[in-house]
């Protein structure tokens, strides 16, 4: 663990705050945590709070900390946790878990850049009725929340795309709402045409001046244009457009939406009931407004002995990421929610006394005028002759437990797809048990239903599968509580 966190920011006090102010701030913040979360070992935010308080409340430690801060001003706090500090020689490949969190170093809300937002709505026949009405209501709320500095565009698509609201500043709410009301649903689901029109609208302003984001809402499958869609969003990501995708109901392609959002480090989510559309859309827009650092990438320059087996973002918005190439998009850091990623690495220890990993990141922080700023942390693992017992930090244990549940579910469905119903049933049964053990009763019930369905009929439902996939994914944010403000 490094000591780079800005403790003044954690407590929300000025660097020249008095001891009483520090005391008061720490108590006030501490009380915001539910009693169960007041464990510095499992809650990152609480851990930071406790650490900040212990340093700043001690005049001697505070003086040393101030001196260090003067020497090395930071803009983004990077904390790295690892599951082990040694590797056993001659044991071959070994797993190493690395959890990295990046947090805004200043708590005060900076005037963030305005939004350049494009809402891309599926208006195929199946959207008619409650889904479309809820989407319109959600869009209305979003429009109300935006400021006159922001730019919005709205695109709908069925067999082809329609630009309902061309890229414009949000200064005539009534006109925008009137345009929304003209939307009706009929036809197929041609996602590519919708995305093309959306990206085109987003490109009408200078991307450097805005936070550019496309929100896709769909309830169906697109046919034959998946690859082109992914390529389009890859290209858009290069032009600083990020994306989030929401699937409504059960009949949409989750693997495809995951791949669409990967290039920009965005996220996909499952909206089970139309009533939830408003919340999801609002949360997304609110998160965009709280963007502190964007275009965050992990720069892969780890030694050849190290390979990445799995990479997942835990916060904000849990999302598996593709660990490939030298620049791996991770997403954004929000002023209120740190970015946390978990790596599962395989390390084959070399014939040397130690392995050094340099975990390097790159981020753009517009409020500081920093573009593609690089920073990192060195982790050294010593190579020892005998395997040592693992004593990972509880936070890593929690994160890996969640990851294990998520992957058990993915594995069961991969086995099901491959035709091995028996194995899938067994695994789903095990997942049920683990979910019960971990106290996630509601998810356990869904898993049990799927187990029984597999056992009795050898079938599954798209609904159940999505519930489990996104349910196990949401455990990360629920259980780790990385949001400092929650």
């Amino acid at each position, binding site marked *: 663990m490094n000591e780079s966190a800005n403790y003044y920011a954690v407590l929300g006090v000025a660097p020249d705050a008095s001891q009483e102010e520090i005391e008061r701030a720490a108590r006030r913040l501490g009380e915001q945590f539910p009693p169960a979360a007041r464990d510095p070992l499992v809650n990152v935010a609480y851990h930071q709070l406790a650490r900040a308080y212990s340093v700043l409340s001690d005049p001697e430690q505070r003086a040393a900390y101030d001196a260090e801060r003067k020497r090395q001003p930071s803009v983004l706090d990077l904390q790295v946790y690892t599951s082990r500090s040694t590797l056993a020689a001659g044991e071959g490949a070994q797993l190493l878990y690395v959890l990295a969190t990046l947090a805004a170093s200043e708590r005060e809300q900076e005037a963030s850049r305005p939004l350049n937002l494009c809402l891309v709505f599926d208006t195929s026949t199946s959207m008619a009725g409650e889904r479309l009405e809820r989407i319109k209501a959600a869009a209305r709320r979003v429009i109300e929340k935006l400021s006159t500095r922001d730019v919005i565009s709205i695109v709908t698509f069925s067999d082809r795309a329609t630009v309902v609201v061309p890229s414009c500043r949000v200064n005539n709410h009534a006109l925008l709402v009137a345009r929304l009301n003209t939307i009706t649903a009929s036809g197929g689901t041609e996602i590519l045409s919708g995305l093309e029109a959306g990206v085109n609208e987003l490109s009408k302003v200078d991307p450097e001046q805005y936070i550019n984001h496309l929100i896709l809402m769909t309830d169906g499958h697109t046919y034959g244009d998946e690859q082109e869609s992914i390529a389009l969003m890859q290209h858009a990501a290069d032009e600083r457009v990020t994306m989030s995708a929401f699937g409504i109901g059960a009949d949409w392609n989750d693997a495809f939406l995951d791949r669409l959002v990967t290039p920009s480090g965005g996220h996909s989510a499952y909206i089970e009931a139309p009533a939830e559309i408003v919340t999801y859309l609002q949360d997304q827009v609110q998160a965009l407004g709280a963007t502190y650092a964007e275009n965050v990438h992990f720069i892969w320059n780890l030694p050849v002995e190290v390979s990445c087996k799995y990479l997942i973002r835990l916060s904000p918005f849990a999302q598996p990421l593709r660990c490939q190439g030298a620049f791996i998009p991770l997403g954004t850091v929000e002023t209120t929610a740190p970015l946390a990623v978990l790596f599962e690495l395989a390390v084959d220890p070399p014939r040397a006394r130690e392995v050094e990993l340099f975990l390097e990141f790159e981020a753009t922080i517009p409020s500081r005028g920093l573009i593609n700023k690089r920073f990192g942390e060195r982790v050294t693992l010593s190579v020892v002759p005998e395997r040592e017992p693992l004593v990972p930090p509880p936070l890593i244990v929690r994160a*890996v437990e969640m990851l294990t549940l998520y992957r058990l579910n993915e594995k069961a469905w991969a086995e099901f797809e491959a035709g091995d119903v028996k194995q899938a049933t067994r695994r789903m049964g*095990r997942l049920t048990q683990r979910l019960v053990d971990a106290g996630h009763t509601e998810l356990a019930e869904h898993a049990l239903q799927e187990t029984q369905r597999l056992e009795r009929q050898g079938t599954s439902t798209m609904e159940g599968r999505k519930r489990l996939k996104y349910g196990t994914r949401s455990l990360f944010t629920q259980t780790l509580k990385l949001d400092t403000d929650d």
Partner: protein
Amino acid sequence: MIRCSECNALIIPGALYCNECGASLLGNGEMREAQPFVEKEAEMDRPRLVGQEMNPTVEAEQITFFIPFSGRRIRLPLQPQIRIGRTDPSAGHEPELDLTDDGGVGGGVSRCHADIQFSGEGVVIIDRDSTNGTYLNGYRLPPELPYPLHSGDEIRLGELLVHVFIE
């Protein structure tokens, strides 16, 4: 490579959880424990537990152990206490169920590993603070606490699997 103690899958060293079955690999501290007998009794409707569920095991007469590793099947009359372990005459250990020849040594069975007790409350199993633990249907039992045992249950002593049938 190491093996998962619950599902026997091969695991890359350094893993914290088994990717095949989700079991924690961090040893006792992180193991989830089964609910002790007393707590279960307190949670549930008392008459139902004693009257209904326990009936089959209360009226039991004999108990059969099947050890897949050795293929041996042992049938014993149900008596107030059946000790499970390994015979060691020098230390005076003579368990009713001796697993020495069933792979007990390699499987990590202690000399005095666990007891099966039979009383008016039914059949229970108690781990005798064994070195490698007693598992009931995949749960590691906390030592020295009685857990109800039912026909068809699977117990594991260290790494040695034993199926139990009560008639």
